[in-house]
Each structure stands twice: as structure tokens, then as C-alpha cells.
């Protein structure tokens, strides 16, 4: 009996006449890594934006641990356990690596309104942040400004910030995009480690088939904004839907 952590029910968003996400109904369970695949423009990132709240849904609902959060703000969803890493690196560029992670932990521990204490005096935040940085092997760069980091290290920091948030629902949007061959395994191993935590669920948007094959417990396919397939990785990847979607041919019977 697995617990459902996140559900979308008929989730739809329309931009003018264009339906970017079309009535997607799907549930995500604890202890499962779900890969979300589909060709470019299929609505994967938009689907993520709807779940994490950056875009308001036209119709349908998002439920987080049974609670309807469709109209809830981004910050509030995050506080309720929804964590997201972004496809385009989205950090605090003028602050240090350590400060970026510390800010996340500080948010998680609700310490942001400490007005009269010195930030440096909260040693536990720093210790915790360093532990997270070690996991992505960025601890040596703690005092570096984020804007001075290499692209690969910025991607790692993006992942570190999500881990620091310690959410119930992890959302990774192409975490290894633009990373070199030697850098990607650090991040992928981390995601594999997170999978062992059976209280969590992981959503992963990814293009690389080998990554999906090794990590995914389940695959859902989005095509033109709609759910085109859902199931066991081997099964889904062999299906005509995926083959056709990735070949770029028109789907006739969705």
C-alpha cells in the first residue's frame, strides 16, 4: 500500500487558444521515481510550473498529500513539502555558494524573520549547509560567488538547494542538462540515493534515455500537453506512442 503524495486531476492550462497542458490526471506515490518524458514543447516544464505554482491552472486541481493546493502560493506549496530544482539555473548569483544553501535551510527552519541576531551566529545552519554541499562535492567552493562558478557546478548547486529543502516531493527538471560527462554521475548518484528514502516521491524530467532506464520506476509521456502513456519503463519505452512521439510524427489516436 503506497501513499499518494501528489496528484493532479484534469490539470489544464490554456494560453490564449493554445492548450499547453491538457487535462493531465496523474498520481505520484511515495518511494517512486517517475520520469516525465516527451518531445520539446510537450508541456513538461509547464506541467511542473503548474504543480509548483509558478503558473495558475485554467482548470483542474493539484493535491499535495491530499490537500488541494491549486490556489496556494508558490512559497506556501514549498512550505508544505514541494521542492523544485529548475531547468535554467536559478540561483542567487551575487551571494556565495554557502549562502545560497544556508538561505534554503533557513527558510526550511522558518528563521527568516530573525531580525536582531547575527546570521553568522546560527552555526547549525552553516553546519547543515556544509553537509549538503559535501554531498554534491561543492564544499571546497563554499566562499565562491555563485556567478563565478562553472555551469556544471551551478547545476550541482541547484540540486544541493533542493536537497537542503528536504521536501516530500522532489521535482528535478533536467538536472544534468549541460553537464560534462564526469560531472553528471555525482548528481545522478544523489538522485539514486534519494530514491531509497521511501517517504518521498521524485519527479524527473529528462531526455537522456540511459538515465531514465537506470533511475525510473515509472514513466509518463506527455505529448502536445496531454498524457500519452503511463506505466512500467520497459513497457512504455517499447510502446508505439513513445517511438512515434520521439520520432516527431503526428499522433493520431491520443
Amino acid at each position, binding site marked *: 500500500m503506497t501513499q499518494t503524495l501528489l496528484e493532479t486531476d484534469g490539470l489544464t492550462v490554456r494560453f490564449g487558444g493554445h492548450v499547453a497542458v491538457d487535462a493531465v490526471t496523474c498520481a505520484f506515490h511515495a518511494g517512486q521515481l517517475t520520469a516525465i518524458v516527451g518531445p520539446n514543447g510537450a508541456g513538461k516544464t509547464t506541467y511542473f510550473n503548474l504543480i*509548483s505554482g*509558478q503558473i495558475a491552472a485554467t482548470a483542474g486541481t493539484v493535491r499535495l498529500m491530499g490537500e488541494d493546493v491549486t490556489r496556494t*502560493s*508558490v*512559497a*506556501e506549496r*514549498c*512550505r508544505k513539502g514541494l521542492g*523544485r530544482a*529548475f531547468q535554467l539555473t*536559478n*540561483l*542567487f*548569483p*551575487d*551571494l556565495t555558494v554557502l*549562502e545560497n544553501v*544556508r*538561505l*534554503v535551510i*533557513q*527558510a*526550511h527552519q522558518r*528563521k*527568516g*524573520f*530573525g*531580525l*536582531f*541576531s*547575527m*546570521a*553568522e551566529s*546560527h552555526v547549525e545552519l552553516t553546519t547543515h549547509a556544509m553537509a549538503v554541499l559535501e554531498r554534491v562535492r561543492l564544499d571546497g567552493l563554499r566562499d565562491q560567488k555563485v556567478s563565478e562558478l562553472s555551469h556544471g557546478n551551478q547545476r550541482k548547486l541547484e540540486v544541493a*538547494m533542493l536537497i537542503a*529543502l528536504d521536501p516530500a516531493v522532489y521535482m528535478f527538471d533536467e538536472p544534468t542538462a549541460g553537464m560534462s560527462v564526469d560531472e553528471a554521475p555525482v548528481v545522478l548518484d544523489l538522485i539514486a540515493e534519494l530514491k531509497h528514502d521511501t517517504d518521498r516521491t521524485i519527479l524527473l524530467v529528462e531526455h537522456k534515455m540511459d538515465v531514465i532506464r537506470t533511475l525510473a520506476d515509472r514513466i509518463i509521456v506527455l505529448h502536445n500537453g496531454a498524457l500519452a502513456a503511463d506505466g512500467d519503463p520497459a513497457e512504455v519505452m517499447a510502446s508505439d506512442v513513445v517511438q512515434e512521439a520521439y520520432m516527431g510524427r503526428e499522433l493520431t489516436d491520443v
Partner: protein
Amino acid sequence: MLTRPLSGDKPRSTVLTVLLLVILVALALAPFLFPGVRSLETAARICIFIVLVASYDLLLGYTGIVSFAHTMFFGLGAYGVALASVHMGRGWGALLTGTVAGALAAAALALVIGLFSLRVRAIFFAMITLAVASAVAVLVSQMSGLTGGEDGLNYQIPRELTPAFRLGELFGVRINGKLLNYYLVFFACLILFLLLLRIVNSPFGRVLQAIRENDFRAEAIGYRVVWYRVTATCLSAAVAAIAGSLFAIWLRYVGPDTTLSFEIMLDILLMVVIGGMGTMYGAVLGATIFVLAQNYLQSLMGVASEATEALPLIPNLLDPDRWLLWLGVLFILSVYFFPTGIVGRLRSGR
């Protein structure tokens, strides 16, 4: 040793450390180092503007919010003290009541403006503050029955803070109420500045910087960005109001030109930019240089003009009446050569 009072935010530049110490010592001993009414006037004005500019830096430099209502909050504090002194009569109670009431009114007004406009876009906030500040300035000049209109208000403050209160002499300097008044201003400003320094180095201050850098991500890691922006606005407004109260206590006069004018708003903006946004110490340098230039550039030019009398054209250019032109030139040059402000420049080395 100094880490705690400075909240761990050290100047991080030898030149800057020296400059700050010079300013601190000069202000602390101003009545003894620079005797005279005019120099003490200037010193008090520098103290007050350091706090006023630092509180604006909290908003502009740390949170990334542009406000045009800072003089309005400054004025609320000043008029608070003035009105309390006029209506409650001379006394310490009136000063305290006026200061507290002014700060609370400023924070409350900032809360309303913030909640109304910061939800939308930061630029909308700038426009609303401009509108509200203009409206308040007009109200103050029109409601002359209450505020004295364009003439402003004169009132009395406790005798202990006036020149009439004499205590004797020290190092050839007369110790009187005016001197006590100066030290009230000096220490109050020092405490307020250190308080602001603490706030920007607190966990809250870090969140403000995160919001300035990337409000989208700050929201996505769970910070309610609007509330942080509104809180920063209220704090900044309250500190500006207290600076205004000190100004009113020092001058024993308030009027629209000295506290509410748009010129002062522009001065504050320039002081923040010249000193260096988002550094707090920039406020110290910016305010000091600016106020000194405002007060002494004219006399300096008078001297220069006389000295060059024999030369063609140059004495005309250096005529004291042209001081605003030269002040303008100074700004353009400083912004051109120090785009990150003086502090930013000093910290980046060279």
C-alpha cells in the same frame, strides 16, 4: 573585538576602515575639534543624514525597492516631535511621544502602501510612493492651521538641550545644552546605525539580499517575498522617522523645505549611490561627503575665486554662485568613476 557591535560586517578595506574611523572620531569630538556654531550644525546634519541614508539603503541597496517617500517618513518623525512639543508644551515627554508617534505613523503608512503596491511589482511601489509623498507634502503646506503651512513650526524643547543651559567650560569649549543636544543626536544616530547594520546582517537581512538577487527563487524556496518586502519598508520608514525626530529636536524648527522637499529625496538617492548601494558603510561616506560639499563648497569656491582673480574666465567659473554646477559635476564624475560607489570601489581593491 569590534565584531559584535559591527555585526560581523567589517569594512574589508584598509582605506575604508581609516576613513570610517576618521569620520567617527571627527563626529564624536566635533564640538571640541571644530568649535563654532556652523561646524556643529554641519556635524549634527551629517549624523542625521547618515541614519537617513542608511535606512534608505536598507530599502534600495539590500531589498532592491525604489521608494520616493523617504522624506515623507523623515517628515512624519519631525512633525511628530514638533506637534507634540507645540500641543503638549515643552518637555521630555513631548519629545518621546512625538518620536514614538512619528515612528509608528511612518511604519503604519509604510505598511499600507506596501501591502497595497508591493504585491504587484516593485516599480508600482515606486510610483505609489511618489504619489503619496507629493500628496502629503501638499497637505502639510495647505493645512497651515495644524502644520504652520510653508512657514513651518517653531517650538520649545527642554531647557537642558538649549544653549541657555550652561554647565561650565572644558578644554576652552563652553559646555551647554546645545552640546548635550549634539551628543543626544550623535549617540542616537550611532545606535540606530549599528542597529541597521545588525538588521542587514541578520537572517532577515540575508533573505532581503536573496530577494534582491532573485525574488522568483526566494519565493520558490518558501519565503513569502511580499511580507519580507513590506517588513523592510516598515523598518526603513520607522528609522527614517526617528532620524526626522532627531532633526526636529536639533533644529527646534520644522518646515516643508527642511524635511519634506523632493530635493532632499534626491539628495538621499545621490548619497546612497555615491557611497555605494547595499553596503551600509556607503551611507556614512556618502552623507559625510555630500553634506560637507553642500555646506562648504560655496565658501571654498569663494576663496578659489578670489585667489584666481588675476586670471581670465576662471574666477567667473569659480564664482560661489556656481556652486550647484560644480556639485553636479562632482556627482557625474563620482558616478562615472565609481559605479559601485566609493565603498564598492575601495573593497574591490586599488
